[in-house]
């Protein structure tokens, strides 16, 4: 009887110009039964975290193609810490050089999806990372 839908914020921070990839992911997650709040292009870290807070999402997906992840991701994580939102898993999609992977994980990113990652894998990862929240977040 009680509905339990996974809510995901999908944002495209940074300045790169198109969001075809992000839209494909958004549709894929919707088709997997999730509620996807898509916020569009050119989001500042402040906008991403504010939207995540208002929408009370279970997960955040960031699509960054511009290579600006090294600046954007730590800033987003910092703002999330300020708001005590660190229990929300953050996923990163886009082109992240191998050298940066460890740094991103250290910053708090749950998983990184490079180009060509299958939709099934993304859906699975989000489900796995949010399952702990299902039980705890009702209070």
């Amino acid at each position, binding site marked *: 009887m009680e509905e339990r839908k996974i*809510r995901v914020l999908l944002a495209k921070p940074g300045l790169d110009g198109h969001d075809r990839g992000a839209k494909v992911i958004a549709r894929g997650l919707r088709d*997997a039964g999730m*509620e996807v709040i*898509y916020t*569009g292009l050119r989001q500042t870290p402040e906008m991403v975290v504010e*939207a995540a*807070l*208002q*929408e009370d999402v279970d997960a955040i997906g960031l699509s960054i193609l511009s290579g600006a992840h090294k600046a954007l991701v730590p800033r987003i994580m910092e703002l999330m810490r300020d708001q005590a939102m660190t229990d929300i898993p953050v996923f990163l999609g886009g082109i992240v050089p191998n050298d940066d992977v460890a740094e991103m994980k250290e910053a708090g990113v749950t998983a990184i999806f490079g180009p060509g990652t299958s939709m099934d894998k993304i859906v699975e990862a989000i489900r796995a990372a949010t399952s702990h929240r299902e039980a705890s977040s009702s209070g």
Partner: protein
Amino acid sequence: MDDLLERVRQGDRRAVARAITQIERSKDRAREIVIKLYPETGMAHIVGITGAPGTGKSTLVNEIARELRRRDLLVGIIAVDPSSPFTGGALLGDRIRMQDLAGDSGIFIRSMASRGSLGGLAGATSSAAKVLDAAGFDVILIETVGAGQAEVTIANTAHTTVVVDAPGMGDEIQSIKAGILEIADILVVNKADRQGAANTVKALRMMLHMGQQKRQSRSGVRPATNLATGTANNRSDDQADWAVRVFETVAPDARGVAEVVNAILAHRQYLKQSDQWLEREKDRSREEIQQILQAHLDLQLERNVSNTEREHLVTAVADREIDPYTAAARLFTQIFPDR
């Protein structure tokens, strides 16, 4: 847990967000939240913004909210998009058009998926509106896609309903069919920069005129209830003194938006000065009680009468073994076994 509601009353944004989630997730918790917050509600002006897909509602909401902020009003926004009937998922994209509102703590935006049921959606939206109301937001804008009865029902729970049209939608006829026009307090033709805007305005004015004549010829005979929604249908009386007007806007440039906001605030004043504010509150309350009662009845039926039992009765009626009244009477005694 009720520390959460205390924080809602203080306007804590995280608490507001969490309370709305709880409402969406659990009917029991929704009931508890509404019961506890209800005494602190009733201050906000609830404005429904509805219209066909793509007419520019979100862009308009963005500009209306900015204009309201210029007038120092706190603005809560609930943007509803449909859930996919196949997967239950939803793509909620209204925020894309509301980016200008970021960084303003006088604004709170929440996206909601319709999650199927008509009554459920109206219930969840109006409960979410109560949370924003209790948190101190002065105006609550509720965006819905005006495509069907669910949206009309939501609009019915607003104090002021703005119906948005745009040229070239070819939906003028459809919107009458859906009863959308009849619920409008304010009509907006957005995309006035587009070809055909003048025609759309003309067509709407003509329909308004016809509608008013119909209203006048009906006056004296007060239609008891609206069959589709079960709500008391005294809007035709409400509007005796309120002239529904058609406004033209170009939302991305904010052109015409100040006038729409003037009309929204004027409508509130009109409702307050006449006894219509109370009348609309009564409409809203009637609708809500009805929905809660219906949900309660459905639940009791589900709990106390098994599906096979119900089907048994259905078959018996179909076979002419018993009549439908007798079947319903039997169900009724089973629904409330302890009476």
